[in-house]
């Protein structure tokens, strides 16, 4: 039997390209920054991302430990983040090397251990080479004191300019001033301010009264007018009241009605209160409120 050669070769080569389905690591990548331009004392981050098949976990003991790796290399920070089957290992190396010229150095590689049940699988992280540059020239310059050195770092004043104290001072003073103002208002230290809300309060109270509480309603309005006048106000002193509070002259008819009604209510017998009277009283207060608010 003659086997067709070309299809067999094609199938075999395709099989060779595909990765075996049971490979323990599905994704592996090492991220490193630029491999040049580092100087003595620089930190170099390195990120390893590894994704495993299900049932395979990373052995945390195989991740390098913090500390000195060799004479010139320290590992300052190690963090392993796991989300599902994906591991992100962040390493932060620090180089302490004083080269005389640009020198290639190598971050050592290591092997990560993965375990699947009792089976161990290893994944090697390759070494990484970078170049380190000197900070000083070969023949050093001399200053007056001898070899050139960077000066001491002076104690900072800005560190002591504690903004918290200033903010605290401003905040507590503001709160104190606001509280003092409100207390002053409550104690009647601002008569001009309190007069402007006389009818506002009366209106609020009137809203809860019915025609059966006519006596209370009339008393409230009387008190408000007395308060505004600074002394008890009667119908024969209305003109004096208008002279002191000219805007109220425009509701003269309503005020006159109010004093007449009040007279009849308190001093004559058999007065029957109807809903309309209460409504008229409320209208009067509405007008007064508009005047005290300055919108009329």
């Amino acid at each position, binding site marked *: 039997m003659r086997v067709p050669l070309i299809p067999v070769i094609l199938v075999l080569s395709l099989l060779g390209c595909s990765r075996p389905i049971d490979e323990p690591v599905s994704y592996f990548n090492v991220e490193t920054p630029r491999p040049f331009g580092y100087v003595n*004392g620089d930190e170099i981050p390195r990120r390893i991302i590894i994704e495993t098949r299900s049932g395979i976990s990373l052995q945390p003991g195989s991740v390098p430990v913090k500390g000195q790796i060799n004479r010139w290399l320290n590992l300052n920070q190690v963090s392993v983040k796991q989300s599902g089957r994906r591991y992100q290992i962040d390493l932060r190396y620090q180089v302490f090397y004083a080269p005389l010229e640009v020198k290639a150095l190598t971050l050592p590689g290591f092997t990560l251990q993965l375990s699947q049940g009792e089976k161990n699988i290893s994944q090697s992280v390759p070494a990484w080479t970078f170049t380190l540059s000197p900070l*000083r020239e*070969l023949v050093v310059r001399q200053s007056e004191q*001898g070899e050139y050195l960077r000066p*001491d770092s002076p104690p900072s004043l800005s560190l002591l300019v504690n903004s918290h104290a200033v903010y605290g001072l401003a905040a507590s003073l503001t709160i104190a001033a606001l509280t003092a103002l409100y207390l002053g208002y409550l104690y009647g230290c601002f008569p001009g301010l309190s007069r402007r809300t006389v009818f506002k309060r009366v209106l609020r109270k009137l809203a809860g009264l019915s025609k059966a509480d006519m006596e209370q309603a009339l008393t409230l309005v009387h008190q408000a007018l007395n308060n505004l006048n600074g002394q008890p106000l009667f119908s024969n002193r209305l003109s004096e009241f208008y002279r002191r509070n000219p805007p109220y002259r425009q509701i003269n008819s309503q005020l006159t009605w109010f004093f007449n009604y009040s007279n009849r209510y308190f001093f004559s017998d058999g007065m029957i209160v109807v809903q309309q009277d209460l409504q008229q009283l409320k209208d009067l207060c509405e007008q007064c409120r508009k005047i005290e608010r300055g919108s009329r």
Partner: protein
Amino acid sequence: MIRRFRHISLWSALALALAGALYSLGVWYGIHRDNHLILQLTSGKDVAVNKVISGEPELRLARAFYFKQKHRYDEALSTLSLVMDKGDQAFQAKVRYNLGNLYLEQALQQAKAMNINAATPLAGLAKQAYRQSLALDSGNWDAKYNLEVAMRLLPEMDRVDMPDDGPENRKSQLWTTVPGFPRGLP
């Protein structure tokens, strides 16, 4: 009842706010005084030691700065060692950098006077302080530069780099720690 409660709470709020204002004022005044002392020390005038003891660690750093300016190295060292573990990370990095400078300056002086035995441990201590400072704050270029000065003064060699580290080579290995390597090169 509610009005009474409102009044009491308003008065206590006022009292609390005033107390807070007084406290903040006190803190603010303290900061102002400390800043003044620091300015005095950095401009080269000494201040009484009891003022420094009660204040912030920055004050001790300023006092050490003053001692170093006056070349009173031992006093500067003892002052700095008191604040090694105080303050935040940036402050600790700064203390270690200044400590490194303190050692390195002495090491350079000893090396200039050809006291190699005295210069070697001082340069080693300087390197250690700079390394610690850079581990805390890797962005400090001054520390990087001065560490390089200290490392050139006292170069380090890997044992791995010298495979034939036999007894006959011991002497030559000693030579690697001779200070001032780059000086006088063509």
